[in-house]
């Protein structure tokens, strides 16, 4: 935890602000889903979800101001999650590239 003094009023204010921002982003993601933008729909939905997740992690979960070890842990987790997506995707997206049945 951070070593500087705890400010109760500022903490509660930041929680309420984050809650408000999460509500706005939820409305945005629903509104964006009604507009057909092709593949861009997915990009927008995932970008908003990551923004919301970052707000929750930083403020509600107190990652902001915590020691570097916590960030190492979070980004380590995201890295291995990306690896888990990456390797099956290599297979799936490269099927049929060589024009040889089964390759």
């Amino acid at each position, binding site marked *: 935890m951070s070593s500087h003094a705890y400010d*109760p009023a500022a903490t509660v204010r930041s929680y309420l602000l984050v809650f408000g921002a999460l509500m706005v982003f939820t409305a945005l993601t629903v509104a964006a889903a009604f507009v057909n933008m092709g593949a861009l729909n997915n990009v927008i939905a995932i970008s908003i979800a990551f923004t919301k997740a970052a707000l929750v992690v930083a403020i509600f979960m107190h990652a902001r101001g915590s020691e570097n070890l916590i960030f190492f842990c979070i980004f380590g987790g995201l890295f291995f999650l990306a690896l888990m997506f990456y390797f099956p995707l290599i297979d799936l997206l490269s099927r049929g590239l060589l024009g040889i049945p089964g390759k």
Partner: protein
Amino acid sequence: MSDGVSTGAVNRLQPHFATPAQQYETATFGMWVFLVTEIMFFGGLFTAYLMYRIQYADAFAHASEHLNITLGCFNTVVLIGSSLTMALAVHSARMNKSKSIVFWIALTMILGSIFLGVKGYEYHHKWVEGLFPANWFFQAPDAPRQRIFFSLYFAMTGLHATHMIIGMGIMIYISIQALRGAYTSSWYTPVEVMGLYWHFVDLVWIFLFPLLYLIGLH
């Protein structure tokens, strides 16, 4: 903790830690490591979702139309609200207010129960409509592909709901301990760790909601 010299924290200090602050950081770090294993746990289902969504994008969009967007939005607001009340419960612990901890935890549990109730209603509705992936799954040309969507829907939301039920069990325990005055502003590690767990549950839903409910609207 910043005030490493207060008596409450010193009393709680285990012999293998140098300071209460080090003990606190070790506990929260341990919780984060656990949450990473949880990310990988849910990540397997998200990987399955990604692979099938790429192959059967149209069937997934059609299947998603069977989900109730209004209930999905309602539950998103309820769960994010429960994250706010949980953050305020941890804040109360930090401010040395045991009664407020119990109040905010109770409010979090009420919101969690509303979420689970709506989820149960949705499950029942899907069951009646024949959308549960079993022998009586509805018949349509792309039904086998839509069935994959609903298998993932039930697996992902089911695992998510299981986490919520476990979280509410933890909340009951923490409330009882808080009423007994176990937590003070110098030692409230269990409250903080419970908060991390609940916010993680919220994080999973932040991704489930657009991926399950919002892909068939346009």
